[in-house]
């Protein structure tokens, strides 16, 4: 299997230099293969958006590295990075904020393209717009003339136009209505099948992640307080969740009676606490908590095959 896309990350990324430092990521590592989708599930403060920015080399990690196709992104010069960006693109959550309102759609979509002839550029724009179900004539319009779902399609067209190996999508459908969301999710599925692009798909919505990252070979990682606490193929994760936080997330899905996790609902304090520096950061909310949890941070270890969990009692 060609590991065309590879990410290693062993970082701690501190966001603020003034005390106290915030450790947004506390050591996250994973690999992503060609055409594979990796779902990242987490709530506010889990570090998932920081992860997206680091993967896209929009920020540099405090330590650790991000490599795509064997090439360490942080070791590249600014101009080499710009060239390399052809291979990885991003789609953001907000369909209203992510498109420049003062540019026409054609120009927005073409922005990531490297320098090329005008007619070739036009061909690529038409191709990208058609791929997402828009028309070539839409290139002359402005973003405000489109609905939220259509704007997300424009954002996806922009992400696709360079035929990247990897697309990082940070909550791409959260702001959309259910029926519009379904159209965009189907589109993403079609694009995966057609272009074989790998996805790093970030969402708080378990059902959406399960849908997008549910093909054979896909995996889902659950993040909490800057670490991956569980990772497995989605079917394994959602039917045999091992980490108490994953179970709490599953139990919290409203109306989700279909999948019983057997976990007691964690009626623990909702307020964000300073995660302890030693010990498991989930301990204060965990129904399985023991003394060991407060002193010894659990490693992300293999339970079976490709099912990883960071819990002493998984």
């Amino acid at each position: 299997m060609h590991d065309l896309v590879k990410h290693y990350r062993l970082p701690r990324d501190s966001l603020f230099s003034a005390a106290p430092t915030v450790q947004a990521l506390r050591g996250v590592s994973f690999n992503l293969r060609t055409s594979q989708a990796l779902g990242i599930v987490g709530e506010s403060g889990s570090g998932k958006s920081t992860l997206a920015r680091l993967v896209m080399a929009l920020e540099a990690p405090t330590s650790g590295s991000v490599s795509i196709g064997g090439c360490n992104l942080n070791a590249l010069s600014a101009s080499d990075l710009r060239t390399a960006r052809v291979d990885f693109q991003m789609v953001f959550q907000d369909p209203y904020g992510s498109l420049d309102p003062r540019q026409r759609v054609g120009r927005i979509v073409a922005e990531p393209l490297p320098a090329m002839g005008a007619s070739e550029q036009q061909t690529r724009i038409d191709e990208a717009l058609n791929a997402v179900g828009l028309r070539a004539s839409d290139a002359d319009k402005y973003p405000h003339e489109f609905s939220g779902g259509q704007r997300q399609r424009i954002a996806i067209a922009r992400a696709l136009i360079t035929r990247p190996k990897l697309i990082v999508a940070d909550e791409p459908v959260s702001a959309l209505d259910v029926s519009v969301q379904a159209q965009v999710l189907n589109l993403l599925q079609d694009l995966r099948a057609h272009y074989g692009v790998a996805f790093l798909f970030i969402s708080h919505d378990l059902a959406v992640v399960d849908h997008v990252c549910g093909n054979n070979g896909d995996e889902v990682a659950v993040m909490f307080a800057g670490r991956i606490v569980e990772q497995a193929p989605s079917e394994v994760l959602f039917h045999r969740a091992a980490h108490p936080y994953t179970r709490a997330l599953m139990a919290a899905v409203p109306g989700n009676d279909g999948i019983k996790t057997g976990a007691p609902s964690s009626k623990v304090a909702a307020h964000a606490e300073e995660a302890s520096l030693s010990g498991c950061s989930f301990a204060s909310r965990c129904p399985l908590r023991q003394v060991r949890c407060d002193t010894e941070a659990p490693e992300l270890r293999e339970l079976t095959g490709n099912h990883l969990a960071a819990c002493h009692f998984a």
Partner: protein
Amino acid sequence: MNSPLLTVTNLRVGLNTSRGPADALRGVTFSVQRGETVGLIGESGCGKSMTALAVMGLLPPTARVSGSIQFDDQELVGATEAALCQLRGNRVGMIFQEPMTALNPLHTVGAQVAEPLRQHRQMGKSASRAEALRLLERVHLPQAAQRLDAYPHQLSGGQRQRVMIAAALACGPDLLIADEPTTALDATIQGEILELLAELVNDSGMALLLISHDLGVMAQSVQRVMVMYGGMVVESGPTASVFKRLAHPYTRGLFGARPRLGAASFNGVKPRLVTIAGRVPELVDLPVGCGFADRCDRVVAACREAMPAEISVAPAHEVRCIKPHGSFPQGLRSGPFEAHGGKLE
């Protein structure tokens, strides 16, 4: 008293849009009994928030309102602002989607919870402060005593929502209107807020009108649900009945479009979601007849000629459709989240 607490009859709201005047609500009719929990579900533009704002008298001044909103023998349409102020925060409470924008950033949490008490109960400063503390503890706000003097930006989203609920409940309203109260919150906090609302409804006997786009939230939280589309209620009934029958084509489309956690893959790939063709028309483009006509796979000529009348498909379960889906098909498990592939009779 057996009369409903809230009766909305043929409510129409006209707005001025950039493309001319249009009706945001086109004849909404429903009622809420004392102590009942009712949900309004629909996507953007269906009119669910508009309905709540109409009940609270919070529509923009340029809105043209006709029809009737009867709250416990009092007619709200055309009522004076003074009369509406008497009701708001007193007998009718409302909480909104974005607690950060709904709360005043310049006033302490304690002051905002106490405000309805001072306004409607004429409570003094220390009495209202004591009551505000009791309310914050009632909504399980951690460290409530310290939080009385905190400002909204010092709290998390879930905590701010609890503060809003406390303020809305301060005067013991008969009706609480909650407009997407959990949408902006994390999954685990969402569950806690919904549980809190259920607990408060049970304890106080107040009615709840819950507005959400989330099918799961409805399944969990309300006894009756009303589906809205294009400014009309298109289906209404007991939650279990509506979610099982999916009689209106739009309701059925909404269910089919939702990805289901744990759905089976076919050949290693998840099946496509069943989508509703087209998209929600703008208000000015809504036709004379059924607003869903252009997107419906069961449409007939009569659908466009006039707004369909309500038909009863089950006890207390009505659908505004000429050709609603019939009894639940054989061979499919019942349950709120069965994905429906393809056409069903």
